[in-house]
């Protein structure tokens, strides 16, 4: 059974059909990519999966449970966490505080525990901090824990967004253009990083424009154009699919 099962979802903005009857699925412990030209509806799809947008049609199942009727909070709790195309870190917060926000839903104590510093508060805070330190260490980010998120270079900010997503205890990480703005070396390092996440047991759904990254990393690829699925398959299949070549290079173009 697929971990994420997206069935015929549709989203319209006024007259524009941004996502049109889109169906795809993501199997456990795989790296699946969604590619397509600008405005294809990729980010909109992510926004629907994470509950930022309501669906205008279709269903989404995660781990066998319907999630399209749930709030973003419930979806995060169910085990889906994301990063954003234009980084959305909490700018004035330190790196570790950003990751702590990821842990937030698992940090359980009440207001009075906080005011009176009860043992329950101390234990929950200790555990949350411990976990965040471990996540940062495992991603080689521990040396930046004191920095304000806004002061770090772009590539690091993207990694910290991933750390924050991991902190939610998500099973499925959905990454919206993680390599955007990275140089070739950085995006190569990102590739190893995403492999290591997969090996650590995460399932990954990603949107990416960097073709060499997508072709090297993905177990399976879905190609969208104007909100519709135009092709799918393994990297090799997709690379030789004439519809994909046409979508990317226009009619008569050739794929090298």
């Amino acid at each position, binding site marked *: 059974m697929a971990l994420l099962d997206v069935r015929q979802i549709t989203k319209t903005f006024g007259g524009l059909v941004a996502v049109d009857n889109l169906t795809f699925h993501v199997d456990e412990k795989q790296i699946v990519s969604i590619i397509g030209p600008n405005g294809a509806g990729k980010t909109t799809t992510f926004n629907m999966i*994470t509950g*930022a947008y309501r669906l205008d049609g279709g269903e989404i199942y995660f781990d066998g449970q319907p999630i399209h009727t749930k709030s*973003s*909070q419930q979806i*995060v*709790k169910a085990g889906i*966490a*994301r990063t*954003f195309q234009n980084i*959305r*870190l*909490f*700018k*004035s*917060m*330190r790196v*570790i*505080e950003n990751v*702590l*926000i*990821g842990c*937030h*839903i698992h*940090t359980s*104590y009440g*207001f009075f525990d*906080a*005011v*009176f*510093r009860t043992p329950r*508060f*101390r234990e929950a*805070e*200790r555990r*949350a*901090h*411990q976990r965040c*330190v471990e996540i*940062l*260490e495992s991603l*080689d980010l*521990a*040396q*930046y*824990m*004191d*920095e*304000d998120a806004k002061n770090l270079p772009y590539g690091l900010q993207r990694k910290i967004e991933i750390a*924050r997503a991991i902190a*939610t205890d998500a099973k499925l990480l959905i990454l919206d253009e993680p390599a955007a703005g990275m140089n070739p070396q950085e995006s190569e390092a990102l590739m190893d990083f995403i492999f290591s996440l997969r090996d650590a047991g995460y399932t990954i759904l990603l949107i990416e424009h960097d073709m060499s990254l997508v072709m090297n990393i993905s177990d399976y690829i879905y190609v969208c154009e104007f909100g519709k699925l135009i092709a799918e398959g393994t990297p090799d299949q997709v690379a030789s699919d004439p519809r994909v070549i046409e979508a990317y290079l226009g009619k008569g173009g050739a794929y090298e």
Partner: protein
Amino acid sequence: MKQKRFDLAGFAGRYKLPLLLVLLAALAAVPFLGLSSYVVRVFCMVFTYSILTISLNFVTGYLGATSMGHASLYCVGAYVGALAATRAGCNIWVSLVLAVLVGCLAGGLLGVCTIKLSGSYMTVTTLAFAQVVTMVAKNWTSVTNGTLGIKDIPKARLLGAELTVRNGGMYFVGLGLLILCLLFSSMVIRSKYGRAFIAVRDDELGARMMGLKTRNYRLLGTVISGALAGLAGCYYAYLTGYIDPVTFSFDISMTILTMAILGGLASLPGSIAGAAILTVFPELLRSLDVYRYLFFGFILVIMMRLRPQGILGSVKAARYTLPKGVLRPAAAMEQGKEGT
């Protein structure tokens, strides 16, 4: 080369206890220095405004929603205190509790009115809210005594002794309330609640996508703000013995907002600094008469030019303090040792 800068927050953190003790001893000595009761009253107003500024910071500093009607919550507290004292015969302590409770309700109401709004819409709503509160205070004559206000609020008492400005009693009540308010606020801020507030301020949608129930936190912020403003209002009513609707005008809202900005938004020490400066300066400059406002505006403009984040705004220790029992990762050991 690394530039070495003085790490103010780190310094204060390292010598926290001795610094605090010295400060407390100095503050406790003030009423015994033989100062005129006018000067002691200025101190009491510093306490009042400090609490108000902290209160405003929960909405404006931490949650990032500019309120231009904060005097309304202050007003609610003052009227609750004054009415509890004159109508129900409550003592100051019961009145304070009542004012905090009603303050929570008023803050909650403001929160409910503004929960779906942001930016200027939220600000305009706080203005309207303040207008409504003033109208009620002016026109609900049977309860509030209208524009005449409430006179002869009885003096506070403790174990039979009257607490006044002259004998220092009200000074210590004010100082005690401020310390209470500081303790409470710093506990809230240094917990998941404080983190959530700042996350909502930095990026509300982002916070929601991380699973935070952002509206609950916004509501909590306004409730806390109402509670603290209520506390300050009730204290003020007992301090002066007389309140009327004009006492809680738009000017007061702007004063509190200016204090918060001058001191540095989202900073508890900054709140006190802002309140102290903007309470004491106008008093010192009284001889300049109306020209003091000119002087005042001038200082503010210069200040905003040189240090727009406020006196103590964005002052952070170089290092984040991990809770007891969590080891600092080896990779982060070098970081910020002497301030970076």
